């Protein structure tokens, strides 16, 4: 058998052929942390909060030092979450977090065909495990995850949900997917989103992005996603609320950042006004017309971020169209 997509696994992870959509919904549960995880005793959960935070920061360090695609980190975190939800991790073994991180990154890099050398990340990050130990851990992760390493992620569903909106303008579609991807990456760092299925995360991220970019169409978009037979509306609304909160906090934080660095004394009320102001400008027209210098700075920052992301996405978009040619 020829595995046509093996050379381009990233694109096939992220974009699926329309025929495979029902399969995706049917099997996404196999690719998320087990349900018992979110209902586990709070002590275990509390421990995992700090464990996970540390692990994610290690993964990000590795991503930057090895120059990985962010999706490699995404996969590594996914493997780690699924592993931890099925295997007891005790607080007595602090090195385990690092070993799990190293092995998860190694597996994610292999799955994504990203060049990766153990010695490189070990040297860079101060991890120090011999190759055999890491390989044993790899096998333990594989066994625990039943070798289901082609994770179904929210990215797998983006195109499907966007297609429900019947947008005719490819630039709008791209903008929506770009912003949603950005939101998915942010949400993945937060524990509270672990309980949601990948499809629900994708749907919420798309809606949250549409609320920012095309607020007028938001309710019709929401209706079309809610009508989709595969989507549980209750879970969608819960996830969407959390996600919009998260996005708002991020916007607020970035304003605070700018404000505190600009040394302009401002009242809390001013800040609040400015935030809502720049939010709405941003969402209505996607260009900022506020005269407040701070708000412009925020908007510029966002534009840069967005540009970076769309650069990344248009690159992967190119790969996608290539992979569809066979």
């Amino acid at each position, binding site marked *: *058998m*020829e*595995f*046509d*997509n*093996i050379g381009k*696994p990233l694109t*096939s992870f992220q974009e699926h*052929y329309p*025929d*495979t959509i029902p*399969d995706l919904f*049917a*099997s996404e549960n196999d690719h998320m942390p087990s349900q018992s995880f979110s209902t586990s005793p709070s002590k275990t959960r509390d421990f995992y909060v700090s464990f996970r935070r540390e692990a994610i920061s290690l993964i990000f360090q590795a991503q930057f030092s090895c120059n990985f695609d962010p999706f490699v980190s995404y996969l590594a975190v996914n493997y780690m979450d699924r592993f931890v939800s099925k295997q007891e991790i005790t607080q007595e073994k602090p090195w385990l977090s690092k070993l799990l991180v190293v092995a998860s990154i*190694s*597996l994610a890099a*292999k*799955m994504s*065909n990203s060049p990766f050398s153990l010695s490189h990340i070990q040297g860079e990050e101060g991890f120090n495990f011999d*190759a055999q130990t*890491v*390989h044993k851990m*790899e*096998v333990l992760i*594989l*066994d625990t995850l*039943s*070798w*289901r*390493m*082609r994770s179904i992620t929210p990215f797998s569903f983006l195109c499907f949900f966007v297609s429900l909106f019947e947008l005719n303008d490819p630039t709008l579609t791209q903008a929506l997917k770009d912003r949603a991807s950005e939101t998915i990456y942010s949400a993945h760092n937060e524990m509270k989103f672990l309980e949601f299925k990948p499809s629900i995360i994708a749907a919420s991220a798309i809606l949250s992005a549409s609320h920012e970019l095309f607020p007028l169409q938001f309710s019709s978009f929401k209706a079309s996603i809610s009508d989709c037979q595969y989507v549980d509306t209750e879970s969608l609304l819960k996830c969407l609320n959390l996600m919009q909160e998260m996005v708002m906090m991020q916007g607020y934080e970035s304003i605070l950042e700018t404000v505190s660095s600009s040394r302009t004394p401002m009242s809390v009320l001013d800040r609040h006004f400015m935030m809502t102001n720049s939010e709405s400008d941003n969402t209505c027209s996607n260009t900022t017309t506020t005269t407040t210098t701070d708000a412009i700075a925020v908007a510029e920052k966002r534009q840069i971020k967005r540009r970076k992301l769309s650069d990344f996405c248009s690159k992967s978009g190119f790969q996608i169209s290539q*992979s569809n040619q*066979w």
Partner: protein
Amino acid sequence: MDNYEKLEKVGEGTYGKVYKAKDRSTGQLVALKKTKLEMDEEGVPPTALREVSLLQMLSQSLYVVRLLCVEHADKRNNTDGKPKPVLYLVFEYLDTDLKKYIDSHRKGPNPRPLSHTLIRSFLYQLCKGVAHCHSHGVLHRDLKPQNLLLDKDRGILKIADLGLGRAFTVPMKSYTHEIVTLWYRAPEVLLGSTHYSTGVDMWSVGCIFAEMVRRQALFPGDSEFQQLLHIFRLLGTPTEKQWPGVTSLRDWHVYPQWEPQNLARAVPSLGPDGVDLLSKMLKYDPAERISAKAALDHPYFDSLDKSQF
């Protein structure tokens, strides 16, 4: 692997031994495919990792043999005492395959044709399974009656032996050095094309379709050259007009000029819809060959109750 009681060796697949075994706790029969996991300095090989996980994903379909689990074991090597990692792929067990089934209708105590309803149903399921693989960007490349397992009681057909192409095998040679069958191989592969695609599987599907009707192989060649001659004798020697680029393929030679025969005569009991579908599966130009997905909508299947699938 203590959970499974090995009952008998049922074959040597392309990438290792296959055992019939019983799950000790549930009594369920399974097919165990044992394969060496060549661990190198990089740990679990990326190809093995990607292929097994792809197999996991494909086996979600009802028309692909289900991979129940993957078990990993360390075997002590008798000579140097080093552990040898072994991977067991545990598949659902089905007791017969399409080759045995066709054989039992050709020879044996009660030779008789396969019923047209059954042929239609098997072909439909085969197209479903192939469409599933293709929709995930995967080619099977070795579809043949032996690789199509049957659940006779329920009338279900499932595609087996998907996979592990790169990680575990040297493509053309089989594990036991038995002669790999060429009968279902598409002409573009026989002619040395390196850029082949989903059409190679559809060619095989066409050959299998004809074989169910005829109860014998459509193109039983015993060498690559003979295989091509079998095909050309029935379908005519391909021309540049029919198949642009054919004469530039790597292994193209000058062949006798045969005229196409009437395909219906090769499958005498098949009705016009069936012959039409078959002819679309056996188009020379791979780009013109019908896709698995389009085949599912062909009028040949109109009389089939599709709600059961």
